[in-house]
């Protein structure tokens, strides 16, 4: 255990993602993601397309950068980690241990995210010979990577490439083939600006593209040359070189993509296209936020993503290794990302900056009919191309990883009235934001539900033959009958199974190679493959109450506490053991231990009796049916299950765990010594109000336990630890593992009068998440005191309200119509204008248009937490931003609750920078809404102006307290507005 504390839900944001072959399995590709304080290995299954976390490791620090690199001629990738530790760390993923192993850890500076301590930028030579680690300012270090005689990775001492007074915007390793490794940096030298009081140099100084060359012969780094740039850039993309391409870099600048190479080649400059008829503020520049490179032996291309989420495919045309043209093509729109990874299997992983992370399959690489924008087209400075947005065409959505980032507010409580509390979290930004309801529990995938003629008691699955991969029958037992269903394409009733249909079943299974066994109260029925039946009958007036069985052994408990043991002999017949074991009290449950590897029979039999004890009985031929150990319990056991847990390395004897479900709702977990049978190391856990029943199921190829009580729980082994998690599903009564062609690790269960086939796929996830849409970034939530509803305020800076958007759209459409000259043009203009008015792009996919700074859009909504329906919605006028919300019960209206929303009016984020516009004074206001008694709607009452933006609201002795600026005012409710009653003046003296 490496934890100092136990985190309920670890970070879900992904700040960095790199891909490569980390496991060493040929041709596979994995993704390593940095989640802030932890590092994770994700694997995308190419057949199902599901993305899974294989390994999660807490680093107890902050991961700032990740780099995957491979030594020349190597087959697996290493991960270099830049963090706040003042060290460079090289990790290797070990698939045997399922953990990241530290290969190197070199200290170079102080800890912490500091201005001049490297760690923020990481870049590698594409041939894996050197790594550059850079700081925000001044420091850059180069490490040479090599391998020793045993082919282990070696790291050199650091080589300095520092430069005073220099800010670094980006670093990338240039592909120069096998020449000296070269790194390109975007730098800004502020030394002149710091010494020039006239502020001329600030305007004059340009960002530079600086090349650093590592001379492998002399073992030092040279600052080769620096080239001033016309437009400041924010991102660098390395272009494949050597035999694969022309080498060089693409600089992503504001509004332009510029290709540059080391020699004196002319720059290739291509403007970034804009969306056609976009409502965005026209003064906004376009910016590339992230990129991904895809390279095969014959071609390469880049995917670059703009701030709006639109991806462009960038290709370079070359003439004899000289780049002549850059081409851009609109690809698709996905959520804005922190990192993009193109996998060789044809998937695109999008680590979204906010909201859920997505996995797409690349269906095609851009259609021919799409417009292509070329750097050769001559355009005036500042002009650009236009393109139309559309639904996904090149990508196919495959899977989602839930993310709770950014979490702006959360409410914990049982608002939905479900016994256990839910977490209501406000997640996301802008039109992609959500109200997410988190319930502690494993998400269950429901595959089939079918109604049965009555309420069944129990269910099993049976294999016909030991060789079968899949289960053959589902056996359902009722009070006075047994139903057998065959599993195939469909599930149908079987008539020739040989089971006795007219009696309830206590247990059934397959025995030997190809026989079946059914235990019913009056006896045991041994059904051979050729349908011959051997029966063993109970003595008169005695009934079987409990039974246990495996492939070779059967144990039954009869009324009166008598236990009979049978074993299969070499002739495939069931033989009763000469002695019977008699207990003082009735047996309540019985279970065999799993058969250890290399053995024929199970070694222990666990028996729970109604006198509140559990005994382990030996099944060794030498001391057959001898009691080995006893555990006394606070109340009788309802159910028992012995489970083997293989050792971590898969070697040696497995550990045996005895799980005991008690009648009072507790689960006891013990370890059983696999030689002496001693019961040790008891752990208890309360599961629910009803007696706990235990069932063995399979999860990720290992035995797991499904526990049913008033809630169902799954006890499974995941990432080297046991998890006991409730299922987010209807209450189950009886269950069995289910394995068919369609469902490998399923569970068949009964709940009331239904038979259900379910599976739990998202193992390791603590919460089951339900999301409801929000319009703007949610800021705060309050809960209705007695209805199942929640009130949220949503605010976005630099946004238009729906009214403004419609107005702008109409203005734009009118402009188009007005510009038309003749009849034909008029026709065309009208069509375009109508399209503009009616075809409104879906903001959850394409993002909301960005307004200029100081524009606000805001709303308040009432959501039913059970259905997720927005029952009331009120949008505030443009430039009013909701900042706080409170439910207030005024003394004047004791029987009704008011929602008060405090807003700012014409507020600016940088108040000291903007000149105050006399037409738009900064003020505040409080909106009052009347909340209906049953909590299903609210109605606008009135708006009260305040001299400053309202930042706090609270219910106070039948009135409301309102805080704005340095004032605290008490308001009472009035007919037309809130009435100020008193004000705290003590702050005013200063």
């Amino acid at each position: 255990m490496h934890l100092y504390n136990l985190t309920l839900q670890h970070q879900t944001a992904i700040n960095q993602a790199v891909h490569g072959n980390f496991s060493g399995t040929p041709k596979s590709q994995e993704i390593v993601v940095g989640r802030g304080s932890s590092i994770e290995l994700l694997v995308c299954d190419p057949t199902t397309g599901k993305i899974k976390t294989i390994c999660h490791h807490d680093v107890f620090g902050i991961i700032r950068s990740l780099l995957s690199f491979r030594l020349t001629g190597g087959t697996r990738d290493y991960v270099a980690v830049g963090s706040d530790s003042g060290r460079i760390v090289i990790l290797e993923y070990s698939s045997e241990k399922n953990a990241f192993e530290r290969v190197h850890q070199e200290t170079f500076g102080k800890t912490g995210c500091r201005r001049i301590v490297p760690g923020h930028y990481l870049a590698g030579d594409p041939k894996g010979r050197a790594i550059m680690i850079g700081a925000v300012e001044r420091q850059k270090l180069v490490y040479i990577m090599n391998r020793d005689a045993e082919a282990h990775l070696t790291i050199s001492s650091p080589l300095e490439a520092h430069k005073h007074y220099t800010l670094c915007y980006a670093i990338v390793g240039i592909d120069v083939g096998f020449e000296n490794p070269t790194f390109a940096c975007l730098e800004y030298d502020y030394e002149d600006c710091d010494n020039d009081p006239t502020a001329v140099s600030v305007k004059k100084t340009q960002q530079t593209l600086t090349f650093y060359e590592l001379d492998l012969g002399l073992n030092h780094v040279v600052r080769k040359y620096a080239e001033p740039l016309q437009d400041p850039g924010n991102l660098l993309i390395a272009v494949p070189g050597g035999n694969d391409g022309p080498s060089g870099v693409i600089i992503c600048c504001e509004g332009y993509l510029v290709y540059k190479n080391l020699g004196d080649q002319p720059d290739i400059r291509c403007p970034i296209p804009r969306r056609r008829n976009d409502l965005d503020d026209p003064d906004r520049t376009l910016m590339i936020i992230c990129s991904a490179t895809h390279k095969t032996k014959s071609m390469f291309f880049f995917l670059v993503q703009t701030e709006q989420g639109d991806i462009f495919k960038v290709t370079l045309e070359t003439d004899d290794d000289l780049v002549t043209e850059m081409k851009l093509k609109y690809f698709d729109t996905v959520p804005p990302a922190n990192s993009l990874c193109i996998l060789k299997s044809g998937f695109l992983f999008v680590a979204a900056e906010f909201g859920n992370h997505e996995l797409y399959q690349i269906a095609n690489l851009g259609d021919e009919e799409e417009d292509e924008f070329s750097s050769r087209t001559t355009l005036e400075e500042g002009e650009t191309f236009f393109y139309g947005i559309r639904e996904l065409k090149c990508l196919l959505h495959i899977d989602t990883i839930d993310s709770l980032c950014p979490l702006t507010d959360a409410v914990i409580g049982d608002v939905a009235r479900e016994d256990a509390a839910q977490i209501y979290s406000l997640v996301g930004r802008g039109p992609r934001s959500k109200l997410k309801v988190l319930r502690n529990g494993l998400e269950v995938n429901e595959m089939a539900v079918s109604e049965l003629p009555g309420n069944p008691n129990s269910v099993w699955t049976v294999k016909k033959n030991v060789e079968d991969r899949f289960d053959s029958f589902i056996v359902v037992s009722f009070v006075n009958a047994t139903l057998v269903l065959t599993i195939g394409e469909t599930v149908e009733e079987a008539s020739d199974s040989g089971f006795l249909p007219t009696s309830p079943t206590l247990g059934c299974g397959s025995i030997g190679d190809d026989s079946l066994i059914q235990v019913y109260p009056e006896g045991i029925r041994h059904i051979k493959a050729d349908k011959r039946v051997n029966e063993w009958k109970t003595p008169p007036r005695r009934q079987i109450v409990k039974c246990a069985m495996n492939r070779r052994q059967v144990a039954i408990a009869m009324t009166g506490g008598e236990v009979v043991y049978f074993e299969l002999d070499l002739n495939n017949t069931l033989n009763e053991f000469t002695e019977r074991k008699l207990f003082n009290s009735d047996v309540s449950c019985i279970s065999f231990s799993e058969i250890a590897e290399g053995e024929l029979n199970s070694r222990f039999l666990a028996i729970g009796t109604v006198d509140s004890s559990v005994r382990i009985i030996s099944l060794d031929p030498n001391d057959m049916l001898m009691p080995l150990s006893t555990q006394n319990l606070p109340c009788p056991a309802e159910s028992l299950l012995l489970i083997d847990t293989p050792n971590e390395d898969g070697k040696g004897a497995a550990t045996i765990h005895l799980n005991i479900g008690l009648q009072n709702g507790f689960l006891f977990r013990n370890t059983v010594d696999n030689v002496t049978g001693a019961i040790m190391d008891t752990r208890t856990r309360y599961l629910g109000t009803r007696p706990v029943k235990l069932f063995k199921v399979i999860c990720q190829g290992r035995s797991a336990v499904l526990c049913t009580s008033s809630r169902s729980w799954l006890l499974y082994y995941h990432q080297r630890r046991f998890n006991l998690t409730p299922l987010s599903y209807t209450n189950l009564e009886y269950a069995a593992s289910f394995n068919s062609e369609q469902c490998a690790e399923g569970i068949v269960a009964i709940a009331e009068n239904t038979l259900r086939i379910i599976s739990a796929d998202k193992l390791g996830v603590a919460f089951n998440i339900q999301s409801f849409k929000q319009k703007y970034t949610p800021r705060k939530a309050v809960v209705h005191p007695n209805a199942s509803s929640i009130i949220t305020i949503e605010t976005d800076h630099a946004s238009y309200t729906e009214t403004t958007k419609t107005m702008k759209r109409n203005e734009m459409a009118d402009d188009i119509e007005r510009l038309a000259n003749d009849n034909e043009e008029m026709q065309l203009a009208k069509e375009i204008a109508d399209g503009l008015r009616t075809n409104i792009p879906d903001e959850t996919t394409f993002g909301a248009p960005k307004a200029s700074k100081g524009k606000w859009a805001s709303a308040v909504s009432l959501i039913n937490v059970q259905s997720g329906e927005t029952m009331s919605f009120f949008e505030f006028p443009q430039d009013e931003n909701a900042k706080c919300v409170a439910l207030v019960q005024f003394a004047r209206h004791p029987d009704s609750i008011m929602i008060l929303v405090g807003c700012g009016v014409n507020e600016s984020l940088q108040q000291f920078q903007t000149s105050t516009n006399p037409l738009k004074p900064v003020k505040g206001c409080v909106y009052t809404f009347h909340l209906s008694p049953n909590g299903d709607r609210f109605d606008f009452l009135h708006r009260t102006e305040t001299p400053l933006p309202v930042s706090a609201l609270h219910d106070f002795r039948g009135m409301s307290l309102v805080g704005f600026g340095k004032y605290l005012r008490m308001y009472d409710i009035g007919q037309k507005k809130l009435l100020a009653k008193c004000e705290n003046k003590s702050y005013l003296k200063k």
Partner: protein
Amino acid sequence: MALPGERFHVLAQLEHLQSKYTGTGHADMNRHEWIVNQHRDTRASQMSHPGMTSFIAIVENESRARTRFNLLNRMIQPCGPPPDKNPLDDV
């Protein structure tokens, strides 16, 4: 008794520190120099902590990449141009 020359030694040490750690103060530091360093440290810290960058990005409703770019640009001259040099400084 302080050894002769130790005063110079301290001075040399200080100089070494100043060259090693950007932002280390000195006796003749003026208000502008100090506040500029504070600002640069703050901006660098904000862009280096992923959560902080996200926070600012949410508030300003900008992408994280642009927030980071803006923060870097604000490190260039965070508090306007330096004040005119006092002619007495060089005497």
